[in-house]
């Protein structure tokens, strides 16, 4: 391969000053490896929290909301627009739950983006064991579907969640409830709802998420058991939970379903606004840290090239005297910057991967979080090298420009 004379000169200058070249590219290397490390940690953490939130909330939740009474029915009955009705808006309690839930589920399943749909009955309850009482809520679910959507198995501490279906009046309780009422798998617990009669249920298992509030309040039972507990019939459903193949489509699908069913449909983004806010804040922190690192690396390159140019000013004059144009001189010095950037970039990527890997092996052991969540995401590495090369180009541009403006007469005549 034929390399141009500019490249040859650039490479000779770099290799003649190995130490400085090394230090400059180490600056870039640290910048890029930190970039990769921070990006991996952030994406890993975000993915983890996203996954965590899907352990408890579905991608989309459809439920019937209490409505404000208005007068449109009355007006359509009177059929006379000259009537002015004065009303006092009041909340209407929807005691019926979702009307025709299985028909709605059937309709929802026609959407090709849907991964799983499950009906649910939720109710506020009071748990009693001996003389101790505890407020909480119970979810009547199809436990197999629930596991498919929320990975119940991964949170199980003792017992077998399948027994919710198999054991009559089986209940799966959170670890917090178990601790507060000092209950174990196999014990009995009294569950009382606001409307129905109390029921004595059998604890078939105990689960623990990392969210204390859920562990201390929520329990699972078969949907029929909860309907019985509330004294409702088999078509009583309060929520329909929907998971999608790609959760990023949730807001769009939620909107579709809202128009289709007429019920309130909430996607996970709305339900977890604090999570999204945390993502955004983390992104700002991360980007400012990375920006500072790359800025420092850029100044390193700027400095070293500037020094090179002061040192080589006579040689630049000679090059110009022997017929190198300003553009050639820029090319010589800019190439040096780019090689420093590429060298630092390649080593930085390897080093960044190494740090990321090592940190992903650090044991944390908080709740279900055993190791630091790190993602190994290829676009981060591509981004990193692009940023590295861009920074070095920017840092190299000004010194190169300066070199191209050297007046050979002034330098040679002294």
């Amino acid at each position, binding site marked *: 391969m*034929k390399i141009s*004379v500019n490249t*040859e*000169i650039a490479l*000779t*200058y770099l290799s*003649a000053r190995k130490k400085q070249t090394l230090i400059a590219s180490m600056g870039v290397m640290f910048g890029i490896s930190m970039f990769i490390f921070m990006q991996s940690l952030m994406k890993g953490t975000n993915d983890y929290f996203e996954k965590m939130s899907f352990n408890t909330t579905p991608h989309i939740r459809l439920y019937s909301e209490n409505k404000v009474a208005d007068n449109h029915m009355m007006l359509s009955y009177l059929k006379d627009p000259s009537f002015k009705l004065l009303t006092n808006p009041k909340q209407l309690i929807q005691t019926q739950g979702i009307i025709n839930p299985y028909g709605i589920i059937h309709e929802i399943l026609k959407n090709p983006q849907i991964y799983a749909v499950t009906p649910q009955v939720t109710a506020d309850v009071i748990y009693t064991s001996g003389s101790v009482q505890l407020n909480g809520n119970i979810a009547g679910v199809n436990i197999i579907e629930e596991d498919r959507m929320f990975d119940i198995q991964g949170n199980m501490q003792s017992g077998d969640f399948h027994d919710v279906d198999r054991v009559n009046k089986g209940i799966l309780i959170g670890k917090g409830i178990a601790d507060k009422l000092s209950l174990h798998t196999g014990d009995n617990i009294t569950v009382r709802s606001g409307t129905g009669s109390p029921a004595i249920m059998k604890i078939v298992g105990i689960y623990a998420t990392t969210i204390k509030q859920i562990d201390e309040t929520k329990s699972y039972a078969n949907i029929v058991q909860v309907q019985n507990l509330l004294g409702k019939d088999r078509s009583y459903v309060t929520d329909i939970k929907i998971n999608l193949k790609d959760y990023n489509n949730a807001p769009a699908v939620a909107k579709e379903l809202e128009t289709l069913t007429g019920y309130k449909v909430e996607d996970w983004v709305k339900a977890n606004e604090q999570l999204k806010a945390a993502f955004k804040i983390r992104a700002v922190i991360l980007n400012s840290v990375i920006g500072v690192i790359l800025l420092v690396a850029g100044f390193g390159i700027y400095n070293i090239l500037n020094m090179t140019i002061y040192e080589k000013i*006579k*040689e630049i*004059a*000679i*090059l*110009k*005297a*022997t*017929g*190198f*144009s*300003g*553009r*050639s001189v820029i090319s010589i010095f800019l190439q040096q910057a780019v090689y420093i950037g590429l060298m630092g970039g390649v080593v930085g990527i390897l080093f960044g991967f190494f740090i990321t890997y090592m940190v992903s092996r650090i044991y944390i052991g908080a709740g279900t979080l055993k190791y630091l969540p790190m993602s190994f995401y290829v676009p981060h590495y591509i981004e990193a090298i692009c940023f590295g090369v861009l920074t070095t180009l920017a840092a190299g541009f000004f010194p190169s420009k300066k070199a191209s403006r050297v007046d*050979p*007469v002034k330098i*040679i*005549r002294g």
Partner: protein
Amino acid sequence: MDTLALKASGINKNFYDPVTFQVLKNISFEVKKGEFVSIIGKSGCGKSTLLYVLSTMDTDYQGELSINEQKVTGLSLNELAAIRNASIGFVFQFHYLLPDFTCLKNVMIPALRLGKLSYQEVEHKAYERLKILGVEDQALKRADKLSGGQQQRIAIARALINEPAIIMGDEPTGNLDSKNSNIVFDIFKQLAHELKQTIITVTHDEDFAHKSDRIIEMSDGEIIAGH
């Protein structure tokens, strides 16, 4: 033999700092191909300033300059760089080689810049030039490891590599002892007479000047002898 290598007509140049001072006054002369010209004069008479105007590196002057019968006054800096690369070779007082490169590379760089020949051809040609100047055994040493006289010979080889129309020397022997001065002079003479190479040098060295074909003497920015 009547083609002109260089023609200057009505060159004027002023320095403005600290006070306006006319350093070149209406200078006109011609140099034929194959001539060996020395420009002499006292310090401050403007002879070096004139050389840098002739070299196309200094563009801040009035008047007109042609090299190889091509008008160069008014060309852009990049065009001038290309002309210097192809048509002018330089030898400076302080040899000014690139110390990070081998002698061979130093000689090759202007030819590689010109890009007319392949790398191998340039290398071959550079060796030939070094042989003419008797320093081919130093070819692979780094430039800053050589003695002053050897470095000056490398610099001459570099000036020759693109077969320029003119070689310009700014005190080419100014930093050399008499033995090395004689060697350099002999080389210039040989180049002028045997290879028909045009040479313009600025020098203090009376002996050197008197041995050349033609002397242009300057005083206070004017040519006083040697038309």
